[in-house]
């Protein structure tokens, strides 16, 4: 099967969609020769229709929901603000309808695309005219810059070679999101670890990267559970304000090792509530790591362990608790910049 897929001429993104097939120009009735792409589109369209027909036969409602209901269902920006939330029964009806209706399904898909922000409120001002510096001054400045860069590079190499703080690698091609930490997992901290490293015992610290133009932020936290009543999610709490961070304790919301929670963040920027993203986080008890942390000879060793294991929130907390220094600040900056 894999070999078959690899030998295909069309990648998945290049495949014609059923929507494209629907809107494709009609062939002239006199055109006897139809191009292969049109035929392929029709072929896929027919297959898709057949599948959707099966869903209808299985009891999927055929009546299309209103656009407002679809918007609520798809979780568009501001969903739940301007219309009452959908009941779980209605959500299930719409969900089944989407299996039977390609058009509604494609409409909901458009909501996955996050609107642009920031919106331009004030046009950029024209650059102020500047006096041209003489050539000798530019040359002197360039020489000075080379010297300064050289000194910084030398010191940086020295710091890196001593292995003082973990090195934050550059990941090319990885899109940076507004959600800084935690993004994948949080560590359950037991009493011994909390006593050794009090900075790790401050609870979950949801943190966003800085966004200077936004004026307020909102955090929504859910527990993800197959047994949850609605949508597989149980809303835990919502917090909003002028802070880009939000703290909570796992046990206060019934979360424990093995739980999974999700957090979403929104920013109000230029009058628009912008969805910043969502992270799904596992609550993990790692006895081996806990033992290693307890055995660490210093906070810096512990930081290296956390950093290497991808415990981003914990690494940030521990680094912040360490005495301020240039290397520490650069590490924090690099971690939050990614």
């Amino acid at each position, binding site marked *: 099967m894999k070999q078959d897929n690899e030998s295909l001429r069309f990648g998945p993104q290049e495949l014609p969609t059923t929507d494209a097939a629907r809107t494709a120009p009609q062939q002239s009735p006199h055109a006897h020769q139809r191009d292969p792409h049109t035929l392929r589109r029709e072929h896929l369209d027919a*297959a898709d229709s057949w599948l959707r027909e099966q869903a209808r036969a299985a009891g999927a409602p055929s009546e299309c929901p209103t656009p407002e209901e679809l918007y609520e269902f798809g979780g568009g920006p501001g969903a739940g603000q301007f219309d009452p939330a959908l009941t779980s029964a209605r959500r299930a009806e719409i969900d089944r309808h989407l299996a039977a209706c390609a058009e509604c399904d494609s409409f909901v898909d458009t909501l996955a695309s996050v609107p642009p922000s920031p919106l331009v409120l004030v046009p950029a001002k024209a650059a102020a005219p500047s006096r041209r510096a003489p050539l000798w001054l530019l040359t002197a400045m360039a020489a000075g810059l080379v010297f300064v860069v050289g000194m910084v590079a030398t010191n940086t190499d020295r710091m890196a070679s001593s292995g003082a703080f973990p090195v934050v690698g550059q990941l090319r091609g990885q899109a940076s999101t507004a959600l800084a930490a935690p993004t994948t997992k949080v560590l359950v901290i037991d009493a011994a670890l909390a006593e050794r490293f009090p900075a790790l015992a401050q609870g979950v610290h949801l943190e966003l990267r800085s966004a200077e133009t936004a004026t307020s932020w909102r955090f929504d936290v859910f527990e993800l559970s197959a047994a949850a009543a609605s949508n597989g999610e149980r809303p835990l709490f919502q917090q909003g304000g002028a802070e880009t961070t939000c703290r909570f304790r796992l046990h206060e919301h019934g979360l424990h090792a093995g739980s999974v929670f999700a957090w979403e963040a929104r920013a109000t920027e230029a009058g628009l509530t912008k969805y910043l993203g969502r992270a799904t986080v596992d609550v993990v008890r790692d006895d081996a790591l806990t033992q290693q942390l307890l055995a660490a000879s210093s906070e810096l060793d512990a930081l290296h362990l956390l950093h290497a294991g991808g415990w981003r929130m914990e690494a940030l907390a521990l680094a912040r608790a360490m005495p301020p220094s240039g290397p520490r600040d650069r590490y924090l900056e690099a971690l939050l910049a990614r």
Partner: protein
Amino acid sequence: MHSETGQYHLLPFLQSSIPRLWDGTGEMEPVGDIDELALVRELRSRHNTAVATFLERYRPLLLHCIGNFEQDHSTRDDLFQDVVLYIFDRLDANAYDPAKGSLGTWLYRVAWCRVVDLKRRDGGRRTPRLTMVGDQLPERVDASPTPGEAASTDEIGQLVRRGLAHLDGEERSLLVLRFVDGRTMEDIAAALGISLEQAKYRVKRASAALRRVLVHDYSFEDAAP
């Protein structure tokens, strides 16, 4: 596409008074830092500055929404005009409640719903229902497929079943659960013990895999003597 708001006279007014903002070309004129409530108030009076501010501030947002539905440039412009006029209509009707959310959020929601409405109407126009005119007009159109349609459906069904058989176990199960059993995404997520987002993603991936198989099969059929 035609506006159905009945306010065609607004278009020439808008386009002539603020042409560069309307079509998004050229330098934008500086506009005041007007707050949302004042902007809404002024928009109801169709003040030039307010309309210019509105278009400058929210044009990218509305175009983003429209761009998700329509790739064709001229159709996008038509939709943009219709959506703007519809928004003015809704503002005139006091449909925006600032207590519920920001203007930008409300605009996106209104624009999205409007475009969906227009797309549905457009789709309806492309596939008109034809009825016979005559004395013996049947009370209800016979919806059952013709023998030709039934044979074609059977053939497609066989192709899809064959395509499903080529998928790996999980992909096949997902498509069967979703389309043949008519299960909701929530049910599927619960059955597999995964999050709802994961379930949606995997069903989409399985659909793409099926399409690859079908295109592959079709290419072979096409090449067969």
